[in-house]
């Protein structure tokens, strides 16, 4: 199964399960979790099921195309099921069957892996999924997003597409993968890995990125209508959540996060500064989460209207 067939198969499988299929986010992200389809949709009471490929950039993982396992840009397949269904693990195993692995012939295990994103103020509990010792997916029950309790809880499945494809195609080097039957992954990505690694580690203009970080941070607050209060803390100055531009503001958060990752790869942050940047991204990410939730509330949580009555689920909310 070539790389694009793998994606097509997962798309078909999760579409059949009732997921919306959406396209990757239009800005650089470190993981599918940053996509607003996960980070924002995990908030509040509205049900949501979505699946998408997310090209994910981790500047520090770049190896100039030399390492057979590490890339500065790889692909996640992200599935969001809210509320998390009772048969989430079974659905996941069915998806493995769909891509041609028979779980009973392999050693498939769910190994504890708790997830936390300090920049997003988000955490959850779950597993990494091992297939014959290879970590192929992460499985998380979101407990908090932007510092807000997730009610109901969202289940997140993240497939490491390159890893799975290498397993399925029985190759030891990511660049030997077949992207299609005619074109290799190396053809598609090797030069790109070299260019981006060079850029991330050597050429990126650190000063420019520091400036951009500040400007996007500033812009984010403006879009949310935030002002400094008497104590010098940032607070919402715009009382009507519908007048806040939450999605563009969140876009600024995503940009800040990536700019920070770049500065980190560039070696342009000291340990203490690092903590400072993380805290700044978290602060605006939280502000977006809060605004988004108030906005959805002001809109009357539109997706609740079409939702099946929650009593259908035996695990429904209890008194």
């Amino acid at each position, binding site marked *: 199964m070539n790389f694009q067939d793998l994606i097509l198969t997962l798309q078909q499988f999760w579409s059949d399960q009732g997921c919306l299929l959406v396209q990757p986010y239009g800005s650089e992200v470190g993981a599918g979790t940053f996509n607003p389809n996960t980070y924002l949709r995990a908030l509040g009471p509205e049900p949501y099921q979505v699946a998408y490929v997310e090209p994910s950039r981790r500047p520090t993982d770049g190896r100039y195309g030399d390492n057979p396992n590490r890339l500065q840009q790889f692909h996640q397949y992200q599935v969001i099921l809210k509320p998390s269904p009772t048969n989430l693990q079974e659905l996941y195993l069915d998806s493995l069957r769909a891509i041609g692995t028979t779980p009973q012939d392999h050693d498939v295990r*769910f190994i*504890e892996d*708790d997830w936390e994103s300090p920049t997003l103020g988000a955490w959850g509990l779950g597993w990494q999924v091992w297939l014959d010792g290879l970590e192929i997916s992460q499985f998380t029950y979101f407990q908090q997003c932007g510092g807000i309790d*997730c009610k109901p*809880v969202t289940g997140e499945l993240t497939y490491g597409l390159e890893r799975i494809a290498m397993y399925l195609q029985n190759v030891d080097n990511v660049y030997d993968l077949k992207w299609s039957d005619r074109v290799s992954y190396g053809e598609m990505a090797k030069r790109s890995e070299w260019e981006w690694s060079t850029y991330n580690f050597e050429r990126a203009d650190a000063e420019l990125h520091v400036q951009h970080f500040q400007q996007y941070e500033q812009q984010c607050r403006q879009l949310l209508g935030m002002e400094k209060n008497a104590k010098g803390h940032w607070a919402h100055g715009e009382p009507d959540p519908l007048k806040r531009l939450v999605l563009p503001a969140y876009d600024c958060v995503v940009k800040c996060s990536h700019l920070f990752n770049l500065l980190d790869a560039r070696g342009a942050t000291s340990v203490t500064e690092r903590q400072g940047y993380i805290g700044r991204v978290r602060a605006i990410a939280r502000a977006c989460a809060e605004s988004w939730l108030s906005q959805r509330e002001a809109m009357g949580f539109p997706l609740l209207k079409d939702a099946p009555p929650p009593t259908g689920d035996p695990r429904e909310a*209890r008194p």
Partner: protein
Amino acid sequence: MSHGSESQPLFDQLLFEITTEELPAGLARSALGSMETLVREQLAQARVAHGAVHTMGTPRRLAVRVSNIATHQSRLEERKMGPPIQVALDGEGKPTPAGAGFAKRCGMDPSSLIQVETDKGVYVACDVVMEGKPTQEILGDVLVEVTRSIPFQKSMRWGHVAVPFARPVCGFVALLDDTVIPLQWAGVTSGRQTTGHRFLAPGPVVIPHANQYEDCLRKHHVVVDVGERAALMDARMEQACKDAGVTLVPDEALREETLFLAEEPFALVGSFRPEYLQLPPTLVVAVMRDHQKYFATTKNEHVATEETAPLAPHYVNVVNTALRPGDITRGNDRVLEARLRDAQFFVDEDVRKPLVEHASQLGRVTFQSKLGTLQDKADRIAHILGTWEFEPAMPPETLRLAAQCCKADLMSLTVGEFPELQGHMGAYLVEQQNAQGGMDPQVGQALVEHYAPRFSGDALPTTALGQALAAADRVDTLVGCFAVGLRPTGSADPFALRRAILGLWRIATEGSQSFSVRALCKAAHDAHRLITQRPATQQVASKGDGKSKGQLASWEDTWALVEAFLDSRLRAYYGDRFAPDIIDACLTADAWAQPKGLLARMEALTAFRAGPGAEKLTVAHKRAFNLTKKSHVEDYDEQLLKEPAEVALQQVVTRVGRTVTQQAQALDFAGALDSLARELSGPVDEFFEQIFVMSEDEGLRHARLQLLHRVVNTIGQVARLERLGG
């Protein structure tokens, strides 16, 4: 209140199982322990008599069996006290409305009121009898209470379920013999149906009777009894090793973890390319154990530890299924190959630079914003080591190198990727460098050892340099943190100072070197003053780090805090071996200067207290102490003491004082206490018998008090007996 004790017919057993999505392996064991305690507590509270309680569990289930369950709760007989008789009964002895109301509240007829005499007069009372309900009716509530009370380090919610558990709960089996106990929690109801092995026997498993639980599951590839599963796992690992011609390197922590990663464990032996055996063995083991949960193997037939056994290029992998062992092993081999290749890459990169070159990067890393960079720390360690009196002496070059390089491997790619390699990577780099000559091999071992002891009960560094480096590293962190106000509070101890101080103390007391903890702390304080606080212009150029140096507290203030901390930690540390007042009497300033003496002191004093001379000496000491505690030691004119009893005491105290000082220095505290008891107790007694200390004559009073000061201080060289109880 009493429980009825009439013998009851019994149910054979109660079986309760919580099935879940895969539990974290590290939580299962303690969850089962809590479950047993909770079951006992809840059944006692519900007044249900029972026999043995046995827990079982796998990654997907927590279960408990209780044998010999009473069919009913015990009868409860309780006397409830009511109002005084004059309130409860009228003149004719009939219940007043108040008396009748009390009886009604007890659920009894007013005619059943009885009269009870108490200290405060006669009161009415009701003897209430509550017949036990059938066990079957109350067990549901008991089991729900058990389930919701199991404590987990981290718990979660899922879906719309509002109650927390370690992982989502899938089902309950609750059987009293062959009857289902109905219960509901987290949206799940109980029944007699559980699930088999996720892959080898998927689907429902029906349990007809509680006593068939293990058998039913075993048939469906779930070995639910932990002991049985451990034995099976051990046997299969041993067989797999035998077949492959290797010996397992035991790893208790990994064994415990893998035990809770499979419902039926299978053992497969895989291999890697032998050239990876050139890597540091600790690294190979770390890659296998920490990242893949594989056991290391060796060709040796008898194995003590991973550190001594030469590794074989094979590993043991405990898996949860083995229909196609060849495929599974091929997959695992490939993953390990990729990981080892990665590790090889890091090591190759690191070896290109000598260790001192790695060390030159330390100035770029902040140790703690108020305590400077790792370079500052290394410089301080060098200063502290410079004050250390090695026996035999150590070349200064070796000391400088050890201090400079002890944190250098933190700069290596390998430790960046495998933090558990800290110390080992430094030693490996020393070794590589030594192949070309140049570094004192003692340094390498000291680099590994200076992280020990890492936890309570861990072995100490074995070499003198290792101990000195370990002590210097700890004392630097300890004194630095206290001097800039970073004290542990409550459960927050981010710099692990509690562990650091006990580690330091163990090195001081159990190590091969003798040193004064107080003097070492002073050296550390000097180092902080000289190095961290040096003017910014002398600092290694590093961004932003020069500005935020914290203000260093004075030596006196710092030592007061460290001493109090040490005092409280040692009381806890020795608390299970010595009586609190013995510890109290021996924890004196001398203990910090002479740590090795403390244990001997406490042992000698414990033995002495049980002996015949103790009481007399203690009383003598306390009397002298009480009289002198309001004055200070000063000079006095011995000539003023003329009475025979005071002259005698004066002579004895001088003579015994000399003996005791020598004995104390030789750590012969039993001998010292014996000398004091034999020679000093009598003369002190005689002195108090004959002499009126608080004389009108000021000069004489002063001389007598000062003589008593000498008594107190002579005894105090061994222990402060005034702190002894009784």
